[in-house]
């Protein structure tokens, strides 16, 4: 994308005043983050806090209620663990995915089309990349807080089976970053709320099938391949391996998967920024 394709709105004087200003990026993500934090502060703490409860509810319901029907289960590495310890890491990965996807689709879409927040931001010297990075950063910050909270709960319930559970935190951020960066690019194609509902709809099977609640070995091999091609499965396996302490070389594959996903997501989103913000 060349600067020449820009409307020649900025006079040379302005450019001189703002040397870092470019087509998409003003190097001022901080302002967006600052605004986001302020907005959080002046809105409802409970809302922010509530995000933390969702996986906890799942853990209570499925881990305890359903777990009583099940007893123990085997992980993919052959370890025999209580059902709650099996699903807890999966819930951690899922909530990272859900949070990131929600923030980069619904939230971005809403602010774009209804509350017109971004319109206001972009009439200043901020560029779309500042806004995008700021939003992703805020999403990750929230995600990190939730993950930390959930891990404390896991510890309290005795569901962290090894010290490597500590590494689950960066793993969760990796997962969230992967989904958030891709999610925003996808949002740039969305025109209506109904289309966003499709995103939710497509995430549903991924959520249910990715070895979250039971081993994927219950499915025929072909389906297993499909599941293993999808990102969430890698996230679940990675986090589960860390919290149960079953380290394996496969983990490099999982991490690699997310690194590639992030790279693609960032490039893709950047190329779609114009379509997303400067309609």
């Amino acid at each position, binding site marked *: 994308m060349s600067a020449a394709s820009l409307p020649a709105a900025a006079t040379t004087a302005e450019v001189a005043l703002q040397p870092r200003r470019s087509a998409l990026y003003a190097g001022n993500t901080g302002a967006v983050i600052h605004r986001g934090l302020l907005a959080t502060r002046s809105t409802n703490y409970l809302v922010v806090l509530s995000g933390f409860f969702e996986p906890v509810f799942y853990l209570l319901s499925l881990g*305890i209620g359903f777990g009583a029907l099940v007893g123990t289960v085997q992980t993919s590495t052959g370890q025999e663990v209580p059902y709650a310890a099996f699903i807890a890491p999966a819930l951690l990965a899922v909530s990272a995915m859900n949070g990131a996807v929600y923030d980069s689709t619904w939230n971005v879409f809403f602010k774009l089309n*209804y509350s017109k927040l971004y319109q206001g931001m972009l009439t200043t010297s901020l560029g779309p990349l500042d806004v995008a990075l700021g939003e992703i950063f805020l999403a990750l910050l929230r995600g990190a807080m939730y993950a930390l909270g959930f891990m404390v709960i896991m510890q309290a319930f005795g569901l962290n089976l090894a010290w490597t559970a500590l590494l689950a935190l960066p793993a969760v951020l990796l997962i969230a970053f992967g989904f958030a960066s891709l999610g925003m690019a996808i949002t740039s194609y969305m025109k209506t709320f109904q289309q966003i509902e499709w995103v939710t*709809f497509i995430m*549903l*099977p991924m959520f249910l*099938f990715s070895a979250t609640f039971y081993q994927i070995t219950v499915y025929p091999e072909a389906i297993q391949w499909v599941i293993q091609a999808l990102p969430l499965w890698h996230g679940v396996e990675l986090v589960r391996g860390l919290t149960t302490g079953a380290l394996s070389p496969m983990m490099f594959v999982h991490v690699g998967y997310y690194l590639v996903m992030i790279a693609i997501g960032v490039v893709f989103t950047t190329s779609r920024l114009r379509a997303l913000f400067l309609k």
Partner: protein
Amino acid sequence: MTALDQTQRPDAARAIAAGAAPRRWGSWYIAEHRIRAMKGYAGDAIFQSLGNPLIYLFALGVGLASLVPQGVGDVTYLQFVAPALMATAAMTVTANETSYPVMMGFKWNPIFFGMNASPITGAQIVNGMMIHIALRVIVTVSIYFGVIVLFGAVPSSWGWLAIGAATLTGMAIGVVIATYTSTITEDRGQMAMLQRFGITPLFLFSGTFFPLEQLPIFLQPIGWVSPLWHGTELGRVATYGLDEPVWLTVTHVGYLATLFVVGLWATRKHFTKRLNK
């Protein structure tokens, strides 16, 4: 205040005559409007109401069921969970339709004020929306029912009654949500709260995936007050003849019906009040 109505005046008589049809049929005009507004996404809605049961049944009825080979009570896990999923699907539809759309209609796309400037009353707007939602729920739930029959999860020939149970459940929950959302004047994340502290716990603690008795006793009351639990149990009575005392079955129906009536009344009141600025 004494009303000095001069109903005999020609223009007054004309107004009263013109007001007769909207007074009688107004709710249906609104329902028609909402259905027309669906035109843009009816295809998606149908696809999703078909896709959802397939995914859930495949995941829970096949996947999760593999962890519970012994089944629950006298039935397989699939049979146990199917009526719960059906009621949940009804709840999902009504929760969607009564959360953002209600808030939008007052705020970002303030169509309710437009409707109210015509002869339509606030109560009719609510009625009309509920008619539309009920139709959507019936379609969704019927499709769901068809799918679970195909999965072989409905042993009883009275199973189709579960369609009614699920619809009633959805509507009862819908009007309760609308009672709340119709009072929201400022978006401070209430929808997320509603989802996280309302819908999700209902889904998880209403005897959906496991009998309520599996939960620690302090969590069980969530189920007792949960319309979803009442609706799910009702559905189980219909689809596989869940063994429960008659008084309990009557309680399920009574509880859901009461919620619906009270919620509808309250929503209508809120709408009327809010439109009358």
